[in-house]
């Protein structure tokens, strides 16, 4: 509060101080002169305070409108006269000529001319900005008060617009109507083209011009899309780039190989990215990237993949790096990588089919057949046929193993490609898996299940000998991998059971541990159901061991020791779990199976066991499968002079099949020079003819185990042959194993195959019916289409049923009144009948 005044009064502002009216013309003249100084870079002598005060007064006196207008006009004049002329002078004639045709001048000349022009423009723009920001400083009050009140753009922005209109949109020269803006675009594009061709250009220079274009807008809205850069330059840039890459890709595809193309494309993509960062704006990045990708990849990927040096070539030659490039490129344009996937799948199926065909060819080839003519195999009269068949069976086994190996190699190859080149891409993995499944389950190659089982069998019997646990595990894993691809799992199960059965009974398996390991692997992979029966087989084996031991104790407990007692080793097999039919091969007749007549000593033991067993389990019936057993016989041969001249009884321990034992025991009671004919033997033993023939063959034909002598000597056994005991048998070892011919696991003959398939189909029918009933029980009513779908999906884990078969099963279920058709339903539907 101010002393000396009775009452404070508000005082009018001292506007009167400098006169009520501002002399607008004079003040403006001062300001204009100052602006001129600013534009000629003499600002340091000017007083900001004075200029601001002038402008402030004018605005305060409501002359803002005039001031704004005058400044605007001043700038317009300045730009259109001084600046434009300066820039026009920079245009060298060849720069102007070049707009129409690129020929005539060298790139270097063009570059120098272009840079001169760009430099000039950049300079003008920079100066303009600096000056305008100074002007804006001086006119701050006008900007804040007048412009804000009247919704005018700030003087700075207005001046920027002026630069666009007066400079960029001015004609190149008086008699050339093209706009400077167009020329600017052209020059920049030309420079970029030079860079693409390998020249070095002044990136910073271009960048500053680009910034200028970024700062200006096409219209007054000042939106992002309306920037001159976007509207004018970028569009043109994308167009020319598209043209350029289109022709470049054409040229490259014609002239170079796929690998080189990929490398080039990748370099271009990188270059464009860098260009956007260094020379242009980053916002252009995605757009130009798309152009490049479209032109170099998307439109060309098909051709690229299909090229002679394309994907197929790369796969075949393990060009992992190039495959990676292809993968990378394809990924850029296509999330699904469909072209690459297609090529890979095709290649897998092709190669897989080759493997299949090889296997088929190998298995069908008539071996190193003595008959070059294709006919003999078909000639039933040919004597060699059986042998050939025999050999071909071995050969097929080899083929099967080879097939599995081939498939695994193939799998390894693609796994490596997938891992190293495709960056472990999920989609591609699916595709690869699908392709493998395709060719493995291909309808032209129905034997995959069998082959895989054979492969396992082979490994169980021989392959894993002497391998470390790790290696064994790897082998098993491989088998599982293949198994994964197989669709008809039930078929595999059938084969596996058969093979496993042999291994167990014949003690062929190297390690029980490994067997169990395999089972547990399958359990993980295929589920509990699948291995149920397999596990039961193992259980049977264990129980049998206990039984044997128990029986032995039982016999010992009977009292006096019979020196001639026969030891019995027995395997009791549950008939449902074991596929004995395939082993025996003769069970077809069921009950009518001929009973082998055992020698009395053996028969006694047999009865003893039956009694023992019945005591333990009542109500079970034992069926003796003599064809599966074997016996150890100690045989004594007549003294024969040794090398050292001494005579010595020769004892051999013979390990023969049960049938063999039965046959040999016949000769025990026979005088040395007597013989038995084939028919006599058969009559006495009641061994089925095929088995008898096989056994006699091994006893009388095979040179190393010729315990009997056959007359006449020939390879085939005929009903009329006579057999003598070979007194002079001379074996090198004390223990001699008499093998039974064709007891190994072999590829099935076609006939067997058909049988297997038939059986398989039968069991499938049950599965299908069961599935249908399960579904219907739950749903009560269902349309045909849905029922089929659900059935298929339910069974997918086991096998892939044919739709026709499902239909037939449904028909059959209707006949048996499990289901009924719903009358009058729009689509075919069924109802479950409880």
């Amino acid at each position, binding site marked *: *509060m*101010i002393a*000396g*005044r009775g*009452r*404070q*009064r*508000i*005082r*009018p*502002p*001292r506007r*009167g*101080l400098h006169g009520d009216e501002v002399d607008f013309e004079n003040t403006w003249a001062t300001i204009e002169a100052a602006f001129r100084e600013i534009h000629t870079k003499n*600002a*340091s*002598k*000017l*007083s*900001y*305070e*004075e*200029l*601001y*005060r002038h402008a*402030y007064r004018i605005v*305060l006196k409501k002359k803002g409108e005039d001031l704004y207008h005058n400044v605007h006009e001043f700038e317009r004049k300045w730009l259109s006269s001084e600046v434009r002329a300066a820039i026009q002078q920079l245009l060298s004639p060849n720069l102007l000529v070049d707009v129409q045709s690129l020929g005539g001048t060298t790139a270097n000349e063009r570059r120098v001319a272009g840079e001169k022009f760009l430099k000039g423009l950049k300079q003008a723009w920079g100066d303009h900005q600096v000056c305008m920001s*100074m002007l804006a*400083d001086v006119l*701050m*009050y006008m900007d*804040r*008060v007048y412009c804000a*009140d*009247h919704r005018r753009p700030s003087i700075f922005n207005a001046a920027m617009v002026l630069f666009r209109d007066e400079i960029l949109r001015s004609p190149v020269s008086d008699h050339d109507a093209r706009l400077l803006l167009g020329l600017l675009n052209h020059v920049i594009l030309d420079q970029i083209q030079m860079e693409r061709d390998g020249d070095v250009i002044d990136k910073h220079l271009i960048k500053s011009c680009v910034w200028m274009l970024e700062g200006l807008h096409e219209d007054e809205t000042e939106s992002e899309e309306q920037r001159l850069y976007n509207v004018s330059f970028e569009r043109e840039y994308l167009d020319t780039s598209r043209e350029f890459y289109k022709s470049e890709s054409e040229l490259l595809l014609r002239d170079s190989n796929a690998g080189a193309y990929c490398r080039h494309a990748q370099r271009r993509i990188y270059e464009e990215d860098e260009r956007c960062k260094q020379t242009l704006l980053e916002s252009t990045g995605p757009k130009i990237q798309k152009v490049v990708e479209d032109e170099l990849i998307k439109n060309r990927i098909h051709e690229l993949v299909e090229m002679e040096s394309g994907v197929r070539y790369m796969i075949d030659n393990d060009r992992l790096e190039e495959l990676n490039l292809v993968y990378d490129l394809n990924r850029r344009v296509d999330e699904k990588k469909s072209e690459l996937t297609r090529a890979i799948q095709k290649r897998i199926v092709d190669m897989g089919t080759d493997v299949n065909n090889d296997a088929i060819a190998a298995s069908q080839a008539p071996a190193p057949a003595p008959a070059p003519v294709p006919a003999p195999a078909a000639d039933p009269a040919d004597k060699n046929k059986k042998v050939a068949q025999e050999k071909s069976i071995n050969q097929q086994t080899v083929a099967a193993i080879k097939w599995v190996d081939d498939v695994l190699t193939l799998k390894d190859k693609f796994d490596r490609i997938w891992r190293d080149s495709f960056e472990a891409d999920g989609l591609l993995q699916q595709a690869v898996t699908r392709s493998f499944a395709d060719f493995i389950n291909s309808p032209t190659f129905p034997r995959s299940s069998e082959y895989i089982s054979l492969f396992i069998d082979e490994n169980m019997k021989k392959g894993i000998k002497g391998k470390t646990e790790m290696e064994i595990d790897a082998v098993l894993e491989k088998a599982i991998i293949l198994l994964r691809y197989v669709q008809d799992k039930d078929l595999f199960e059938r084969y596996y059971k058969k093979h496993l059965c042999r291994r167990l009974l014949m003690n062929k398996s190297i390690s029980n541990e490994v067997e169990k390991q395999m089972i547990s692997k399958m359990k993980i992979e295929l589920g509990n159901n699948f291995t149920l029966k397999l596990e039961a087989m193992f259980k049977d084996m264990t129980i049998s061991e206990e039984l044997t031991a128990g029986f032995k104790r039982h016999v010992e407990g009977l009292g006096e020791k019979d020196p001639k007692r026969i030891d019995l080793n027995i395997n009791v097999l549950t008939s449902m779990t074991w596929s004995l039919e395939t082993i025996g091969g003769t069970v077809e007749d069921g009950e009518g199976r001929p009973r082998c007549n055992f020698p009395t000593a053996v028969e006694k033991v047999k009865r003893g066991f039956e009694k023992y067993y019945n005591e333990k389990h009542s109500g079970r019936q034992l069926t003796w499968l003599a064809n599966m057993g074997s016996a150890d016989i100690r045989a004594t041969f007549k003294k024969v002079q040794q090398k050292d001249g001494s005579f010595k009884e020769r004892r051999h321990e013979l390990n023969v099949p049960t049938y063999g034992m039965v046959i040999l025991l016949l000769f025990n009671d026979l005088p040395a020079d007597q013989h038995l004919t084939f028919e006599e033997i058969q009559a006495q033993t009641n061994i089925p003819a095929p088995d008898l023939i096989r056994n006699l063959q091994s006893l009388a034909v095979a040179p190393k185990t010729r315990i009997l002598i056959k007359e006449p000597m020939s390879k085939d056994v005929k009903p009329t042959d006579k057999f003598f005991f070979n007194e002079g048998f001379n074996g090198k070892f004390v223990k001699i194993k008499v093998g039974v011919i064709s007891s190994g696991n072999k590829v099935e003959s076609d006939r067997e195959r058909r049988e297997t398939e038939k059986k398989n189909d039968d069991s499938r029918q049950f599965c299908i019916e069961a599935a249908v009933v399960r579904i219907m029980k739950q749903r009560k009513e269902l349309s045909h289409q849905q029922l089929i779908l659900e059935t298929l999906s339910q069974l997918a884990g086991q096998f892939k049923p044919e739709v026709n078969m499902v239909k037939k099963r449904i028909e059959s279920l209707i006949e048996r009144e499990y289901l009924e058709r719903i009358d009058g339903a729009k689509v075919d539907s069924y109802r479950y009948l409880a």
Partner: protein
Amino acid sequence: MDVKKKYELEAALATEAQAISSGQLKEENPLDLSDDFRLFCEACRRGDLKVCQEMISQGVNLNARDKYDYTPLILASLCGHYEVIRLLLENGALCERDTFQGERCLYNALNDRIRNLLLSYDYAKSTNPLQPLAAHITSLLTRPSPKTADIAITAFDQTFYLHKFLLAARSPYFAKKLAAAPSTTSWKLPDKIPAESLGMALQYLYFQEVSIRRALLGLSDEQELVVLNGIDKVGKQLETERLFEDITEIDDRRRLRQRRADELSRGRDQLDDWFQNNIVKHKRVVDTDKVDNIKWDRENSIFADILLRADDDEELEPEQSGTSTPTTRTINGPLNGLPVGPRQSRSPSRQRKPRKSTVYPAHRAMLLRSEYFLTMFSSEFKEAQETPHLQVITVDCSPAVLETILTFMYTERADFGLDIAIDVLFAADMLFIEKLKQRAAIIISALGNGSTSAVESDNPRGATDADETVDIYEVLQAGWETKVQRLEEFAARYIAYRLEFYIDEPEFAQIVQESANRVKARQETDTVELVDDIRYYLSERFRLRFEDSGLDEMMDEDAAVKAAEKDLGLAVDDLSLEDKKKDEQAPPVEQQIAAGAIRTLDGEIIGDEFLQDAQNYQILLGKIDSLLERLNLDA
């Protein structure tokens, strides 16, 4: 509504009392039995804006309490004086939730409008009134351009660029050191003081909120110890004895705030002292035509780096102009005086009768608070150039105004009289100092009411004192020109409460016309802002009367009422030119007669006054309508 329960409040109150008695907490609302405070409370009760503003300017404690435990804010909100409450809050009155007085204030608020106003100023949201000043000074530590630092202090491996005048103002140690050697431009501390310690001390000097915990984050124990020792040492050396104590962390929100407030006001006082003892002391009054001869060396005792000049008003006699300026008192620093000498004469631009000009030394660093100066010093114009002698910059206002502006920029103080308020408003507008503009507007709208109470209920019939303090047209114009909404509102309210005096003046018609034109310049709408505002306040004036009137007040005002009646009668007579008006003239007379008749009956007085007010209201509204009609016809 989140209001505390009684027992909760009591508990809080008890803990608070305990904290205060144990000295942890400062008494927020100390008892104040002085006469000034009593007057102040009285004004708050009555809603007298003018007295309130005057008292605030005198420095009365806004947050004190009277013998009945009332704070001014509680009184104002209890009595429902919105404008007063706003004034109090703007000047730092506290209404903090979760405190006894704060909740009391909220609880007592007369209506929701007031309640919301109080809530919007809750401490959590508002800031200390000194915060803008502090923030500016803190920003000087890191501001890269324009360059304002004049000394570089190096500790260990770090260099700080600082301002001598601030150091001198804030630290007695620096004040002494720099007085001894004012031209120092760089200074190296012994290596044993870690840079972190110095940094903390400097942040403290520069009003930054320093947190020791944040500063020590990530340091090992030994490093921490070294830094803490360093801080201790620096604090002792700089004689800022509170440094160490003040930077230690406190968790309590109120204690933190109190400490911060203390610190800020102490710092402000230091700056204020320094400002008064150096800048104001060194101002010089010279003849305007000789002002160009002033030459200050760059190196001077008060570290000024710019001179500001203000010319006296021409038409005022010199004696009167220097209201607060004593005679020429130019005291130079003892070491380097102000060489005032004949210099090459830049011929004075104007040759008029000799005027006086006042020149203030100043610091760019503080002037940057104005956007005008910021732009000036950042530009490439003459003012931003380095010159051997200090540049003189003219500020287009009177010396008194310039001093007010400088005071505000250095100390955040803005207590000035109504006489220069409009000038300050314009100057602040020119220099883009938004805060000062607001302060000027507050002062005008508070003091400008004259002795008339702003309280609506006190003045229902537009009674005014004869001596108008304000040329309201002038204020309105100023409000428009500087775009201060508050002044437009103030003017509208002012006119509304005295409408019968203005409604017939030709100037009023003119200003309505102007307001209408302003609207047109912006957007095509049909309303005239001023008239709308006046109508609003008019309705408030009468409506409030209808609602709040009490018998006692009525009796007191009887005299005033009669005076008003008379005035009204006169006014009505005056405008009897138009037919319409004549028609309207008759009813009031009849009413008055009728009223007179009723008045004889006891208890009917109230009814009479209501009727009269209603009548007045209608008449005034009618007049506005006719005025508008006339103007619109013209336009």
